[in-house]
């Protein structure tokens, strides 16, 4: 570890604390139990919840908001379950994502997913084929899913999405 004194470079943590779920971020003592419990961290070297929180506490606003890491949290909440200080990294990263989306920093893969959802109303439209219908029929289920886009339209009306995207 370098011997430099860490002073927050921005009021990023306070900004997050104003968003529901982000309030407790300042209680973090960097014990690392979140990383030690994280299922995602177990399978990728990239994602380390403790370090991400550390960056928030240090005020690295741009870096965190532009990063795709806050989007990797699966929200399994095991970190929240185990954190002895009462911090919920899952909630904190949720707050980060809200802020990032507001400022237009949604990673392309997540954007694609959202587009698919808004266009089709569900995520599996691309992979849905006649086979599923046959299979449903074989299982004695109604092959007609009764799909309609009424609900989707209402969502679109409610969402603050730029006119062109509607």
């Amino acid at each position, binding site marked *: 570890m370098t011997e430099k004194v860490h002073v927050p470079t921005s009021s990023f943590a306070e900004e997050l604390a104003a968003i529901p779920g982000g309030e407790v971020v300042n209680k973090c003592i960097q014990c690392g139990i979140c990383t*030690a419990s994280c299922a995602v961290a177990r399978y990728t070297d990239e994602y*380390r919840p403790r370090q991400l929180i550390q960056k928030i506490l240090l005020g690295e606003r741009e870096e965190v908001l532009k990063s795709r890491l806050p989007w990797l949290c699966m929200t399994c909440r095991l970190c929240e379950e185990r954190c002895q200080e009462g911090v919920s990294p899952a909630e904190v990263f949720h707050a980060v994502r809200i802020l990032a989306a507001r400022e237009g920093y949604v990673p392309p893969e997540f954007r694609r997913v959202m587009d698919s959802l808004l266009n089709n109303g569900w995520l599996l439209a691309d992979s849905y084929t006649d086979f599923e219908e046959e299979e449903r029929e074989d299982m004695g289920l109604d092959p007609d899913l009764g799909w309609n886009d009424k609900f989707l339209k209402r969502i679109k009306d409610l969402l603050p999405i730029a006119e062109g995207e509607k």
Partner: protein
Amino acid sequence: MTVKEASTGGLEQPETPSALVIGGGVAGMQAALDIANQGYHVYLVEKSPSIGGHMAMLDKTFPTLDCSACILTPRLSEVAHHPNIDLLTYSEVKRVAGKVGKFHVEIVRRARYIDEDACSGCGECEKVCPVEVPSEFDEGLGFRKATYMPFPQATPHVYTIDKRGHAACRLACPTGVNTQAFIRLIQVGDFKRALDIVRDAMPFPGTLGRVCVHWCEGDCRRGNYDESVSIRNLHRFLADWEREKGETEEVTAEITKKDKVAIVGAGPAGIACAYHLARMGYPVTVFEKRSEPGGLMRYAIPEYRLPRDILREEIERVEKMGVEFVFNTEVESLDWLKEQGFKAIFISTGASESRKLGIPGEDAKGVYHAIDFLDAVARGEKVKIGKRVGVIGGGDAAIDSARVALRLGAEEVTLIYRRSQVELPAIPSEVEDARQEGVRFMMMTAPTKLITQKGELKGLQCIRMKLGKKDLSGRRRPVPIPDSEFTVALDTLIVAIGQKVPSLKLLEHVARTEWGTVVVDPLTLQTSVSGVFAGGDVVLGPSTAVKAVGHGKEAAISIDRYLRGEDLAEGRNGQLYRPAEPDVDEATFEPQKRHVMPKARIAERKRSFEEVELGFSEEEAIEEAGRCLGCTVCCECKLCVDACDRQAINHDMKDEEIELDVGAIVVATGYKIFDVSEYGRLGYGKYPNVINALEFERLINASGPTRGHLIRPSDGKEPRNIAFIQCVGARDTQKGVPDCGRICCMYGIKNAVMAREHNPEAQVTVYYADIRAFGKGFEEFYQMAKTRFGINFVRGRVGEVWEAPDSHDLSLFVEQTERDQPMMVSHDLVVLSPGVVPSPDTARLAEELGIELGQDGFVAVKDEIAAPVDTGVPGIFVCGCASGPKDIPDSVTAGSAAAMHATLVLSQIASESGQPVEVVRHQKTTSA
């Protein structure tokens, strides 16, 4: 200050003002000594058998690595011998009233069943005690006996018997056999004494060991977890063992008394009564109408269940004890007995007359009544049995009749019962045996008509039943289904629908009920005639052998009291007992099936009168006895009583309530460690090699269960790679313990150092979030742990611990936060360092004292800075861990401070009363 002598339990009335100190840990001891050394009197109350608290359990102290016991022991002895301190261990404060200067305190001194003044702590009782339970002092890692001294330096230096109420099995037994004791003695292989214990309650270990309905097993607490202990078969085993080994001690008559007692009827009640009276030394004569003793046990229960040799031998024992039997004599009047010089009489003539169906044709050829039928077979008379036999009834006599009919050559035996299988009153195992031997069961069926031809039985007309509303017996009453009659072809019918008390001339002299049974006082069994007692079936109506034997025993007690002119009922009036519940951890309880008694093969047994149940082998009996959960811990086998040279043991000791007046109170109730099994992810309680810090203390302690040998619990191997996990049950908002445990960092480091001391080869790692080394010498100690002892400190809280199932080795996942490195690490022993929480009784005591608790549950002090030992109530002070986590020096400091504040109150009282306080200091002991 007046103290009532009567209620202080023999404590001397002090003339000087006195204080009460609650809790005998190091803080409470310090407070008590400081108050006492200023000339005031102190009552030191401690809940456990010894003072010393947690400090007595510790191995070394931090940061100096001094031996905990070496520091503590001289203080223990100082407290014990201080003339101004009354030490009340194994005691609890129940109620507190009054205010500063005049508190009135009620204290319960729990019975330790050993006289503190007489006991020398020699340990002879411990040697003979057959009961072993996990030792609390060793945190359950070692064992102690039911009579125990928690640790070698325990103060007071006396033994305590851990006895918890009454065993359910024993309460269920009408004869009061001390089941738990004889089972424990079987387990340790002392069959002889086990048998003596059975015989203390009744003369029929072999007979009732075969035919008893065993209510004890119904109430056995093990039955709540898997299956009850096979209690009946175990005392049968003892009787079998004695017969086979032939190690019977010759029974001799010891008739020492003059008053003659007459017993009418040599059934189980009569013989049991004679047995107990003979044991007391009374000359007893038993009059029996028939030619042999035993009643229905002799004349009804078939040989394949109860071989006659067994019964005869057990009755012969009673005869050898000096009981005289007069056969073929029917006693017809009480006066005749009185003329013969008998001073007391016990009537036990039974209820052996079969009930009749009361339908036409009952006197036809081929119709028997169960008791007459069984009687004839028992006498060896030739009884003609047909091919198709019906038995009406569902009791033991019905099952016996059915199985006897099979053995006499019947081709088809059908049992007809008007209720369902559930209501069948016979012993379930007998029903099962009958079924296996081929008896058919026709349930929900009642007979309506006997079909006869020329006075011979040809068949039975029956009707189907259904169950209606509950009747007086609590069972659902069977009602006929209309038009469901049918006929069964039979050539023999045995009617087994119950018995009644025959009308005997003798019974005309005492009051009877409308059913013909004798009216007795339910406690004393005395009839309407003074000095005449009755018991067994003649009182109960047809019942069980064991109830009759129980009556015999109770009647013997009454007769003894009657003859000595004592009150018959005193002390016997239906005390309500609540059975003790065993100490079972359901998480770790391992079910184990009860041993099934081997039986003769069905093909061989169903035509033979040879015994069906073959008995347990020694190994089976010992194993089965090992299944007993030992509900009451001490089983009252009383081996300790014989072993104690000083007659210090008294199993009848009662809890004692004493009342004291004190001027000031010091609360020093201490702490308990956080229950780390709440952290499921860390595996405590699930994996044997995950232990807590207090267990570690015992493991490395020279007086601990391993004599200071650091081994891991799963396989006894020396651990090579040990992990210490800090902040478990401390600084955790989610578990309700947000505050720092204050001592865990330092004792954790100390334990890590001791692990290296014990096993220099071992790697030792401490996983922490912060090291809080705030006290004098603490930081140096921490640095020394790193440098001199080579302990590896990893900053990072552990996520989870896993176990490799075969090796019981452990691995944990943690982020080494100083290197941003998540890692899986292997260890062979994991020690959790728990925080501390208030001792369990703190809340109740605080309520009693009127003092407040903080949010953390510790006693709240008036002012953390200016008044750290004052509670909100004047005259009540607090010290040690009762008000929050403290290390030993801080606890001692607080103890002294609380003592100072208490003596301020006491000196006020002294100066007001104008009484000079004489300072009596106890000479300091120097032994270590």
